[in-house]
């Protein structure tokens, strides 16, 4: 039996264990390896094997969920009993839209047999290749690869499954006074070159010694894809889901149809793009759709799941962005944010900024005001001054508290190439996701203070 067929068979066995009017089972399995290194030696190598089943039952219109990773008959039966108790104890949910009816899901890429077959030795070798490429900095980071299987089946007759692979190599090259960062991700591990990533990080690190401070203020800035991706993800998580819009917590609340950003800026959630980490369906089985969020500066839409679509009414339908049933109180999430490229080379973006700052990577972001899209955080591992249209001296880490909408409204340009940037920190079960973004240059990146210098 193929892994896809086995996962579906488990999902069907799970929902059939339930006594309910309707039942749905979501199977999520992971087999992954993580060769984490510090000081240029692997120090926390972790191999994970897990498989869980999330059961969602509907009894007399009431909904309850249970999760188990005991997949024998007894484990499934007990999970079904717990889900039934959860349903029976709940009042009617007016926003429950029923289980997904049978529907075709798109054919997507995102699985590579070679990545799936990587052994622990080969995963450790991914780290070793990065470490061997650099000898004048300590290297900190990881090589990871994994295979994730998601299958969903329910009493409606809907049955879908998908195998996904992903691999990432992330490197901080650092000494006491220098640090640089680079990362690469793909669903095909053979697309990654750990040594090249390590060299990029080390080259960046060498330019960061003797960093100076700058005054607080709003600067023109070039953001590398790593930095732009992180800002975009925090904005997307807080403002691009339908629940945040319905609850008027989102920057996009009341702004759909309005020109809110620079006309060169468009934003999609596109799980079908093979350059990203593709998905065929969301975690309640709804087919994934490419959603236009911003087109040429005009806010077009947000992402939806079945629950928010029902709540909104007016014929709204899910766009395929639901979390698993146990987490749907967070609302739908844009896991595949994608910004189309512009027409500028990196040198041209730096030239357009002329006088400003260059930011490689950000750290520990926090949304200060979601309604206004204001985000705070620190720059890290490669911050530089731009003077006379050239990247010049290194800067210490900078505290920014900036408006993402203002940053994108005052865009100076976007890079010609987009890069996949991994956004998963691999908490809980593995579910690969990331953003496709280019370099970005803007007139408005607000610095409110300075932090420590680069380095350990």
């Amino acid at each position, binding site marked *: 039996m193929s892994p896809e067929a086995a996962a579906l068979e488990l999902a069907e066995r799970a929902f059939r264990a339930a006594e309910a009017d309707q039942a749905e089972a979501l199977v999520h399995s992971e087999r992954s*390896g*993580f060769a*984490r290194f*510090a*000081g*240029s*030696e*692997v120090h*926390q*190598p*972790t*191999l*994970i*094997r*897990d498989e869980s089943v999330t059961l969602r039952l509907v009894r007399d219109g009431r*909904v309850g*969920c*249970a*999760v*188990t990773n*005991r997949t024998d008959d007894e484990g499934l039966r007990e999970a079904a009993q*717990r889900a039934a108790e959860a349903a029976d*104890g*709940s*009042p009617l*949910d007016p926003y429950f839209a029923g289980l997904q009816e049978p529907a075709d899901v798109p054919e997507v890429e995102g699985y590579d047999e070679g990545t799936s077959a990587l052994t*622990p030795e080969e995963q*450790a070798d991914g780290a070793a290749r990065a*470490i061997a490429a650099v000898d004048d900095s300590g290297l*900190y980071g*990881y090589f990871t690869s994994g295979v994730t299987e998601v299958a969903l089946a329910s009493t409606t007759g809907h049955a879908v499954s998908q195998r996904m692979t992903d691999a990432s190599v992330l490197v901080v090259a*650092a000494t006491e006074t220098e640090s640089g960062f680079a990362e690469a991700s793909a669903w095909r591990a053979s697309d990654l070159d750990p040594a090249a990533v390590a060299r990029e990080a080390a080259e960046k690190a060498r330019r960061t010694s003797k960093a100076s401070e700058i005054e607080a*203020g*709003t600067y023109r800035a070039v953001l590398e894809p790593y930095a732009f991706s992180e800002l975009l993800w925090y904005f997307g998580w807080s403002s691009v889901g339908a629940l945040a819009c319905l*609850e*008027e917590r989102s920057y996009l609340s*009341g702004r759909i149809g309005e020109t809110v950003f620079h006309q060169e800026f468009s934003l999609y959630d596109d799980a079908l793009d093979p350059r990203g980490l593709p998905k065929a369906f969301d975690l309640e089985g709804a087919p994934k759709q490419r959603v236009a969020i911003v087109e040429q500066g005009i806010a077009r839409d947000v992402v939806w799941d079945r629950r928010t679509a029902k709540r909104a009414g007016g014929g709204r339908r899910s766009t395929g962005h639901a979390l698993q*049933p*146990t987490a*749907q*109180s967070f609302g739908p999430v844009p896991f595949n944010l994608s910004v189309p490229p512009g027409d500028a080379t990196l040198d041209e973006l730096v030239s357009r900024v002329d006088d400003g700052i260059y930011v490689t990577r950000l*750290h*520990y*972001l926090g*949304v*200060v*005001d979601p*309604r206004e899209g*204001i985000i*705070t955080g*620190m720059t*890290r591992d490669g911050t530089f001054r731009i003077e006379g249209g050239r990247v010049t001296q290194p800067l210490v880490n900078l*505290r920014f508290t900036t408006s993402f909408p203002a940053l994108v409204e005052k865009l100076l340009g976007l890079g010609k190439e987009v890069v996949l940037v991994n956004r998963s*920190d*691999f908490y809980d079960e593995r579910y690969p996701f990331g953003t496709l973004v280019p370099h970005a240059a803007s007139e408005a990146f607000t610095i*409110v*203070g300075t*932090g*420590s210098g680069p380095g*350990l």
Partner: protein
Amino acid sequence: MRALCDHAVDAATASGADYADARAVSRRVQHVATKNGEVDAVSDGETEGVGVRVLVGGAWGFACDRRLSEDGAREAAARAVAFARASAASAKRATIELVPLQPARGEYRTPAERDPIDVPLSEKIDLCLRAEAGMRHADVKITEAVVRSQRERRAFRSSEGADVYQEFAECGAGIDALAVRDGRVQVRSYPSAHGGASAQAGWEFVESLQLEREAPRVGEEAAALLRADPCPSEVTTIVADAEQMVLQLHESVGHPTELDRVYGTEAAYAGTSFLKPGDLGNLRYGSEHMNVIADSTTPEGLGTFAFDDEGVPAARETIVESGILRGFLSSRETAAQLGSGHGGSMRGDGWSRMPLVRMTNLHLEPGEGSVEDLLADIDDGIYLCTNKSWSIDDKRLNFQFGTQVAWEIKKGKLGRMLRDATYMGRTPDFWASMDAVAGRDEWRLHGLTNCGKGQPGQHAHVSHGTVPARFRDVRVGVREA
């Protein structure tokens, strides 16, 4: 579970491991959330498995398997040894030294009158709905209530002879009111933000929170914030309430004193520390009013246990004494590197993650007097309550935190309510500016369940006992320049 751990440890040593330990963990978690009088989520989850950690020469390895069976334990052990051998190619040390330890033997169970998992889900839903109802107000658009319960069984065996079995019960609850008007959004929470407060205790802890009693105040304050003036941008004296001090302590003392961060092993993700090993006993961290202890024996603490995940017994340790750095949070490996301490802070998230140096229960020791006494000495200042946003740099030096609500302080008394309060600072400067700490009567224990660290990511549950404290010359009202 203990026998399975034995199988794993035996299999690992038979495969060539110099040291091996195994944790078999079974965890059950219930979550109830309601919003605007409707049920938002009701779930009941369980997960179980075994994680095996090995040392082969100078390299660690870790592997896990969800199957609590002999096959699962043996296969995890074999994979852990194989991964350690493969990782040894980059190892710089022939061996990894661990601080010597008497083999741990014992059992522990959370004292609880009523097991939180045994409380029916319907009772939990009713509690949430009743608490929510009390927050209703014309300007409050969203009311939310959450309850969580957890039970975890954890067995630990090591090749040194450790044999530990522990059972933990946790529960927690919280309410939030979100007020929206004219494009402005304000939130108030009780007993704390970001999912409420939790404790290692029976259901009686949730009942003691008295969510229904506090709900009307929470709703009214959220609505009042819509009409409040913004926090001014200035340098002034602040008093942070005990709940905001939790976040302040956690981020600017807890994380930087984790010895793995000091040695750089979190450099790629969570970050490092502004502290260096040689700072122990020398560095002035803050004013003489600053006394911080790590205590894994605190009743109701989420970081309370009999033994950590290396088998090191629980203890109460001084971290900062009268403002001087006196201790780090450590593992057996990092304590050996430092040549000081004995570990005791190693904790793994469930069965599928390798233990890391984590906070257990970290407390700011009380001083003297009441909150009113702290305010009495302030002509002009800001009183900051309940965390709303947080961000701190990778060395834990530069921070910017925001609170849900603030009040101006005028001539020793609280004045008008202020919204969108933020403050920023540099860790040692900020703690050096602390000139008063409230007394024992103001001390509160708060439990957090969202402390993230590690790659792959791990959540830790930690508690902090704190008191309100006063700081001079703090920059507040930081927004866009």
